[in-house]
């Protein structure tokens, strides 16, 4: 077993060697511009791009023409949300999203609010899921877009996408979903789920960074977008800019591998995730899972170790790469807004660790990580005045803290 162990696969994934091999010729040998229509260099590049388009479409039940290449899911989210807001501005100016969305969605919505859009940020329950009735009630005759993520990047919970899609169809509203964490990991089908627009990214599915796609529905209804990048009119006018051919080839190959490996891989990762979870819960007290276990990605575990601060825990398991919702690990010095939205209290957000298992994690690694986390949590609880107080039977919620 090699150290350090990477278990932060919601942040990014390594490129699969098979993906890398597929990309390799497109840097130096087949380097043409896919938009060059008058020589073989261009034709070969275009052919590779079209193959990738098909590979992506096949993974999500779409057709190749519905795939628009971008630089990644942040751009896809921007294009989908801003593109719809501009294109359908005459129809309405109201967008519905949720408090636990990725910043690429939330900040895009905030930007639009400055430009006269009205945005509803739905709360989530303690399980991290939106309430469909609340969504229904939030819809007005001015609503043009519902944008809700398929799977959450921190707690891995799956929103009721098919039901949201049904509601959107019934009300004649467009439905965009940020599919970054779900695509390639669980079966996603844009027709079954009633999705009109979906963002996805290469580097979350063992493909390269710097490439992503936006699925844009072409039939019933045909979705139109106002381009956010102007130029040569690539990608049916929705996204100008010379195509990143090696990246696109990698994204396509990554999608094909996910499609083929998913049935086996998701079962294996679920088994490893559950093994890790069961060990932590059996050997430690006061451990809490954040978000629904029932509606969740198979490879995600987000767990709070009460009375232990997240960054100090990460420091103790420094040969394991995971993330924490603790304020001390964030750039803003605020604890995770996703965990705060669950209403479990800031103290549990500070104590949270996100494990993101991936294709290259082994059972041996999971066993090592489990042992290590148990050891370090025990050690830190010996150091923790909160654990001592809890053991003495003091209700920490009733203590008057000198907040700073």
């Amino acid at each position, binding site marked *: 077993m090699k150290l350090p162990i990477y278990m932060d696969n919601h942040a990014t994934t390594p490129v699969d060697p098979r993906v890398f091999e597929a990309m390799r010729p497109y840097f130096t040998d087949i380097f043409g511009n896919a938009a060059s229509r008058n020589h073989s260099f261009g034709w070969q590049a275009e052919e590779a791009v079209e193959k990738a388009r098909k590979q992506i479409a096949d993974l999500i039940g779409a057709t190749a023409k519905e795939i628009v290449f971008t630089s990644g899911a942040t751009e896809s989210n921007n294009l989908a949300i801003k593109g719809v807001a501009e294109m359908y501005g005459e129809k309405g100016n109201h967008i519905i999203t949720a408090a636990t969305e990725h910043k690429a969605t939330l900040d895009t919505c905030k930007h639009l609010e400055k430009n006269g859009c009205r945005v509803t940020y739905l709360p989530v329950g303690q399980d991290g899921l939106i309430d469909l009735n609340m969504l229904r009630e939030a819809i007005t005759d001015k609503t043009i877009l519902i944008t809700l993520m398929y799977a959450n990047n921190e707690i891995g919970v799956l929103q009721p996408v098919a039901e949201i899609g049904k509601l959107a169809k019934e009300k004649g509203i467009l439905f965009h979903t940020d599919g970054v964490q779900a695509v390639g990991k669980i079966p996603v089908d844009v027709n079954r789920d009633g999705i009109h627009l979906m963002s996805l990214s290469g580097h979350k599915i063992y493909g390269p960074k710097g490439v992503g796609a936006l699925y844009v529905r072409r039939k019933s209804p045909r979705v139109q977008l106002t381009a956010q990048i102007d130029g040569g009119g690539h990608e049916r006018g929705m996204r100008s800019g010379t195509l990143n051919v090696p990246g696109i080839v990698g994204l396509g190959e990554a999608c094909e591998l996910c499609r083929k490996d998913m049935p086996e891989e998701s079962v294996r990762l679920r088994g490893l995730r559950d093994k890790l979870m069961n060990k932590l819960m059996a050997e430690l007290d006061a451990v809490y899972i954040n978000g629904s276990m029932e509606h969740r990605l198979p490879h995600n575990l987000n767990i709070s170790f009460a009375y232990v601060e997240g960054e100090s825990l990460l420091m103790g398991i420094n040969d394991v790469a995971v993330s924490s919702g603790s304020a001390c690990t964030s750039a803003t010095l605020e604890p995770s807004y996703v965990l705060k939205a669950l209403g479990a209290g*800031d103290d549990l957000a500070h104590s949270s660790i996100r494990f993101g298992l991936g294709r290259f994690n082994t059972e041996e690694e999971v066993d090592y990580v489990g042992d290590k986390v148990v050891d370090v949590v025990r050690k830190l609880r010996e150091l923790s005045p909160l654990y001592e107080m809890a053991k003495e039977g003091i209700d920490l919620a009733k203590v008057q803290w000198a907040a700073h």
Partner: protein
Amino acid sequence: MAYSDKVLDHYNNPRNVGSLDKNDPNVGTGMVGAPECGDVMKLQVKVNPETGVIEDAKFKTFGCGSAIASSSLATQWLHGKTVDEALAIKNTDIVNELSLPPVKIHCSVLAEDAIKAAIADYRKKAASGTEVAAEARA
């Protein structure tokens, strides 16, 4: 973010972890911070009432590595100091000793606050103890 060697040393081998009897009249207890802010420090001193010298100091901290290191270092420094000398410890001394980056300065502030709170608690106890003794004599 990389941690300084001294922070790592205190994190890996924290000095003076534990608790003193908070009901002992010679023990002062300071508890600062809040769980929802991500750090809570408990720092205790045991003072010799004759000499005013701190004979023992213990801590327990819920917080990041720098918070643990700051409180560990503080207890180390408190040993053998008089109460007045202890009050002269500044958070900047801790920042310098541990090479804390700007985002971790609040950890050192918390440690300074914990020292002050522990000594204030001791002084309050000592004062009321004197009153009790005075009343007994009267």
